[in-house]
């Protein structure tokens, strides 16, 4: 992998992100990654606690609009994450924890999508069928609750994995250690 890392680290984008003293370089990308995380994970938290029975007065079908916010957060973090990866490819890709983080994010997204499907009910094509009863929180399928609890645990794990990346890396760039 080293030739690939060498090549990426030599590109002008990577060099600029790493070495520019401007706050609009690395610091700004980090800010984007943090704000994106807050909205991406935050909306998942709101969904999960609602499905678990917290504040059942929130109509689930109306809460679904917040998926837009969740996906906005996701894309902010996908883009800023790729930029961070371009800045320090060796640092991330030589750390097994980085792959664990990506896997956990994938699992978390699968949970979020499956919870939404559970709430919609199997095969209900129209927006209204089955939703009147879930509005009062009495009809959340048990599987959705299990998924919501697993989802919360998953996002906690993602945050730990992400934060620990800075402390578990062995190589910073191709020719420097962490």
């Amino acid at each position, binding site marked *: 992998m080293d030739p690939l890392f060498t090549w990426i680290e030599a590109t002008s984008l990577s060099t600029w992100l790493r070495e520019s003293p401007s706050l609009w370089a690395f610091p700004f990308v980090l800010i984007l990654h*943090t704000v994106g995380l*807050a909205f991406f994970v935050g909306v998942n938290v709101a969904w999960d606690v609602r499905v678990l029975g917290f504040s059942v007065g929130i*109509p689930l079908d109306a809460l679904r609009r917040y998926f837009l*916010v969740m996906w906005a957060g996701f894309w902010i973090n996908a883009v800023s994450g790729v930029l961070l990866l371009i800045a320090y490819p060796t640092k991330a890709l030589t750390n097994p924890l980085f792959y664990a983080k990506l896997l956990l994010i994938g699992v978390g997204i699968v949970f979020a999508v499956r919870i939404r499907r559970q709430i919609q009910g199997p095969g209900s094509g129209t927006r209204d069928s089955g939703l009147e009863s879930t509005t009062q929180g009495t009809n959340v399928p048990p599987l959705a609750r299990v998924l919501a609890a697993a989802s919360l645990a998953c*996002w906690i794990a993602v945050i730990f994995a992400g934060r620990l990346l800075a*402390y578990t890396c062995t190589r910073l760039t191709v020719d420097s250690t962490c």
Partner: protein
Amino acid sequence: MYLRSTPQGEFLRTARWGWPIFESLHFIGMSMLLGTVGVFDLRLLGFARRIPIAALHRLIPIGISGFAINLITGFCFLSATPDQYLFNLAFRWKVTFIAIAGLNVMIFYARVFRRLLETPPDTPPPLAARMAGAVSLLAWIGVMSAGRLLTFFRP
């Protein structure tokens, strides 16, 4: 300095995984805060109007818990290396943004909230509510940005 000698400060400086674990908790608290208060702010701005304000407001205790986690972990960071924060421009910005958010919350509960509960769902929120939502969102984004900048403004 007194703060440095406190047990929590000592713990964060010496325990191998103390600092990263507390940082992770700080990020979890942040997600709890933005996932509830941020979601509520968007509703104040008129997003997802079909959700009754009172029902969404019931999520706020989770946000307050998140803020409490962050106040505690944040105080521990400050105790561990006080001079890294007290003379740090980004830290001052962060505290200023938290103060703005706090002031905004007080004005919101004193002047806006009760009136807002009487407005039926599906109607556009009054201007004062939209203002409170916008100020809160911007203040918390400011808090997160300043927090992220701390390491770049280290004295």
